[in-house]
């Protein structure tokens, strides 16, 4: 893209990310199906190996840290299905990524109403 912009705290999912994260995102895409979610929960290591995740991606999945998953090429739309396995909602994930408590994160969102 000729449009060269750097946006702090933001990783647009472009070709470089798409290549890097392919195996990770393919695994997360499989989590649309309950049977696959069950198989992952039953044996995460085997499931990750089946999808060919690299070491960085496996470590990020084990950590459940969204920032690490993004650094490993994860795409927000597919990663959300991984988060769904643990019943995390978008405020849990937002809090985790911004290093805030969930309450503080939600208060920050609500504060935009005064903007």
């Amino acid at each position, binding site marked *: 893209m000729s449009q060269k912009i750097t946006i702090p705290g933001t990783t647009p999912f472009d070709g470089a990310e798409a290549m890097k994260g392919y195996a990770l*995102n*393919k695994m997360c895409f499989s989590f649309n199906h309950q049977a696959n979610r069950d198989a992952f929960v039953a044996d995460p290591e085997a499931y990750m190996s089946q999808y060919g995740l690299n070491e960085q991606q496996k470590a990020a999945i084990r950590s459940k840290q969204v920032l690490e998953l993004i650094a490993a090429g994860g795409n927000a739309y597919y990663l*959300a299905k991984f988060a769904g396995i643990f*019943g995390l*909602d*978008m*405020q849990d994930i937002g809090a985790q*990524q911004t290093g805030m408590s969930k309450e503080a994160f*939600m208060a920050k969102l609500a504060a935009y109403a005064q903007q």
Partner: protein
Amino acid sequence: MAQLIGGLATSHIPAIGKALAKGLQQEPYWKPFFDGFAPVHQWLGEVKPDVLVIFYNDHGLNFFLDKMPTFAVGAAAEYHNADEGWGIPQLPSTAGELGLSWHLINQLIADEFDIVTCQEMLVDHACTLPLKLFWPGHEVAPVQIVPININTVQFPLPTAKRVYKLGQAVGRAIQSWDSDKKVMVLASGGLSHQLEGERAGHINSQFDKQFLQSMVSNPEWVTQFSDLEIVEKAGTQGVELLMWLAMRAALTTAGSGVRQVHSNYYLPISNTATGLLALETLA
């Protein structure tokens, strides 16, 4: 020829599906959001569209990176919802309008849009929730649909300029469809929000309000920005406003202009600034 009678736009959020399933519409958190729809319900009851062309973005249910379309047009008799992996209750299937699907496909390819045609297409919450929001009393909304998916998953996204042209081509095609049905265009997406990264939780209500204003009186306004500039202003998922742009561009091809029936802006719902808009085509 078919009539293009107006346009609708709303945010979509998985959490809305859970709120609907649990009947939380009157809870303080949800009430201002759901109450915003009442004037639109009344209008829809009067004008009664037969068919909706729905611009929406798939969230990794039907499309994966092995075959990621820029624009995909549905041509199915029935559109099924399915498990998206995060526990939203599945919604009933919606009937397609096959005649309009193929008319759109033929016209769009003749107009040099390089669309993907989908004779099977699972539709996610972005396609199903607006039907529940606009027709809350119905198990299945009393309309037939043609879903059009616009890529917001992988960059490069189509440019805002290209999306605007797509919308105009869709508007022209609707009005050259040999049918006496009343058609509306619906946009599902936006407004400003960002789910991932250290900037998660980003909202920009000043931008949203400018955008909402432009949707009435200056529809091309946002086409001045690149997709990354839109991300910078509205967040990574804020690019879903491309759906609104396509819807509004379609209306530029019909009648003498638009009348704003209703709009609402409320935040936050989940991590999103929610928008609602209903526009009527003027004769």
